[in-house]
């Protein structure tokens, strides 16, 4: 696998930045193609995938729980006065649920996940690269791409949807906490309003896009880590650029996927 090398210097020109931009896109495309080719060839390293899913889930569980709760609380607190002005506070549970299910839950979970996981993968693989651990794996007749990269990308792709659904539930619960502080709303009424507002067509596109976001987080983290060079500075760079690039790609793909989902489910609009 021949990946284009990025220009590394403390003083890069605009031409160098442009070169690095296209080199990164080319590198990611080649890396992505390599993943597709190798993911279906045995051995499948199932135990490694399970291990990574377990680690990633545990690693991000706390932070996404807090984030989910705060999203729901803030969303309900912000919306309540506005809805009150129009005498439409009954719509609050549905509004919180729809916002969280369709957009905020998946995207914010993905961004948090990118910050926590993509940087971790970038740093871990980057460190393995500069300390020759990846080379050591290769000379042991192990395919490091399959063992380190394919397993991580599959794990991030599988675990992010689970975390997103969890965040959606926590955020809706957070919304209820905000509501009961000021209004005397029964929990059954709140849940009933939520379930009446959210349709299958709202839920599926929101969760489906998290598979893509999870894939992006894994792919970018692995790409940056696997291609790291230049000692500890290179490891730091791999970690930082993993977060920046995966966050940016998540937002770009969110825009594209929203457009696609509206095209598939026109009633969502």
């Amino acid at each position, binding site marked *: 696998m021949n990946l284009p090398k990025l220009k590394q210097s403390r003083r890069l020109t605009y031409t160098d930045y442009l070169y690095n931009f296209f080199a990164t896109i080319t590198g990611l495309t080649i890396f992505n193609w390599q993943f597709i080719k190798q993911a279906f060839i045995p051995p499948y390293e199932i135990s490694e995938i399970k291990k990574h899913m377990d680690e990633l889930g545990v690693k991000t569980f706390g932070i996404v729980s807090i984030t989910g709760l705060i999203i729901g609380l803030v969303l309900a607190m912000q919306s309540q006065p506005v809805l009150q002005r129009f005498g439409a506070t009954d719509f609050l549970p549905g509004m919180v649920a729809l916002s969280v299910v369709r957009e905020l839950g998946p995207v914010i979970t993905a961004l948090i996940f990118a910050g926590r996981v993509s940087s971790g993968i970038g740093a871990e693989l980057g460190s393995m690269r500069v300390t020759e651990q990846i080379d050591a794996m290769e000379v042991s*007749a192990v395919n490091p791409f399959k063992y380190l990269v394919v397993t991580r990308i599959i794990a991030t792709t599988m675990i992010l949807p689970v975390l997103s659904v969890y965040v959606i539930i926590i955020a809706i619960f957070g919304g209820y906490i905000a509501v009961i502080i000021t209004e005397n709303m029964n929990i059954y009424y709140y849940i009933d309003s939520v379930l009446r507002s959210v349709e299958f067509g709202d839920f599926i596109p929101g969760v489906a896009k998290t598979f893509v976001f999870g894939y992006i987080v894994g792919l970018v983290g692995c790409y940056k880590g696997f291609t790291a060079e230049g000692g500890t500075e290179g490891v730091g760079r791999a970690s930082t650029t993993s977060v920046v690039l995966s966050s940016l790609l998540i937002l770009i793909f969110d825009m594209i996927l929203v457009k696609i989902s509206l095209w598939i489910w026109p009633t969502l609009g």
Partner: protein
Amino acid sequence: MADIRVVEIKNVSKRFDDLIVLDNISLEVHRAENLVVFGRSGQGKSVLLKIIIGLMPPDSGNILIKGQNISELTVSELNRLRKNIGFLFQGSALYDSMTVRENLSFPLKRTYPDMSQSEITNKVVSTLDLVSLEDAIDKMPSELSGGMKKRIALARSIITDPELMLYDEPTTGLDPITTKEISELIINLQKRLNMTSIAVTHDLICAEIIADRAIFLKDAKVAYEGNIKELTGSNDPFLKNFFSHEFVPQ
């Protein structure tokens, strides 16, 4: 038996941008022979080892291991060949996230997938015994000293009983006593397992213990070749400078 060529390097060249690190290098290593490669820093010694194991392609020339041209092998054929080659990395390259036991089990499980867990454990323990570090079996690499890491890395590289060993600076950064211990360990293991080896080093203590033959890389070429005494006793000002403690004007 000694005349069987295990490694043949034929007209190998390698350059990085404008820097030529290997220029038309040719050499042979025979079965059970220990070749030491000397050279100043940045003279392509480690690159040569990485080309031999297939981690880096040469710009031109061929590497034959036991008669097989590695540039013509498929990935699976190369991996099959690598199962008979051990590589000791300069920085040990132990897997940070694994214990010593897991570090040693890892290549074993890959090379012999049918091996049972008890057989793996027995092999790990007996190999650790060879490097006198059985007590470190459940330690993490971060808990080991530099010398211990080198020993564990050596144990990991020989656990699959390779026929060919490649050592990249096996004693760099170690004190003279540990250097001697590691070098004795290398030579004992080689005698015991009848291995062929190529060792890249700057370290004369290590070379004197392990070398049957030595070459010296200079200006990207094999500049000197002979046994260790011939090289260290040479009147060539460059070699005198390299091997003596005093600076000899050239």
